[in-house]
């Protein structure tokens, strides 16, 4: 990968990852507003706004972040399984995306209930608070890992960093 392409991919990764966190926070704000407001119009509007935020912002940004993160890992020196922080970030991103995809069906059901009927499914809001709050927390952790990059190489990473043995037979390495 050329340096220019690498920088572009990194920019897309940072933008999509931070955008994912921002969209999830906006979604959480709508859930909190719907849970706490006494204004029926505001609650209905929040239900209706949650669906496009989920499908048009959070889901595309999550996939963009995941794909560009894989590109960063596979085509740079970081790798996907060489450093513990990359492994954890990948695991948390995959987990968050999976939960997100399962939850979007519920979001659509909630929006449909607000659009088609004169009743609002308030029972589902507590689940939305748990999912979106947990999602924001996980994304804050992945962002922190990406910025601080805490030390620690996996056994696989240590093997990859070790230079190939090219010493004469019978000699001892400095570590021995």
């Amino acid at each position, binding site marked *: 990968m050329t340096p220019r392409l690498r920088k572009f991919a990194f920019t897309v990764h940072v933008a999509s990852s931070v955008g994912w966190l921002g969209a999830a926070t906006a979604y959480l704000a709508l859930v909190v507003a719907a849970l706490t407001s*006494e204004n*029926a119009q505001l*609650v*209905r509007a929040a239900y209706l706004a949650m669906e496009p935020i989920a499908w048009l912002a959070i889901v595309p940004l999550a996939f963009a972040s995941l794909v560009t993160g894989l590109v960063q890992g596979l085509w740079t020196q970081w790798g996907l399984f060489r450093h*513990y922080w990359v492994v*954890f970030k990948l695991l948390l991103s995959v987990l968050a995306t999976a939960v997100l995809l*399962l*939850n979007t*069906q*519920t979001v659509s*059901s*909630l929006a*449909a*209930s607000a659009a*088609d*009927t*004169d*009743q*609002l*499914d*308030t*029972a*589902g809001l507590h*689940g939305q608070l748990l999912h979106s709050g947990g999602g924001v927390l996980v994304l804050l952790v992945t962002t922190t890992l990406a910025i601080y990059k*805490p*030390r*620690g*190489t996996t056994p696989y*990473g*240590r093997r990859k*960093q070790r230079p190939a043995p090219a010493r004469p037979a019978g000699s001892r390495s400095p570590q021995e």
Partner: protein
Amino acid sequence: MAGPNGHTATTPRWVKVFVVVIVVFVLAFVVVRLTGLGGDHGPRRHASSGATAPGVPYDAR
């Protein structure tokens, strides 16, 4: 002990803490699912009973 390139040969403490936290969360999730403490959960909740079943009247809010 840190190696020549600054990397440690042993597993760092923060990794162990991370693993413990993740295991605790997974166990809590399994316990909630097995005991039913979390109530009816997931998108199927809406598929069986209809979208309005657990709701409250719109005007009551």
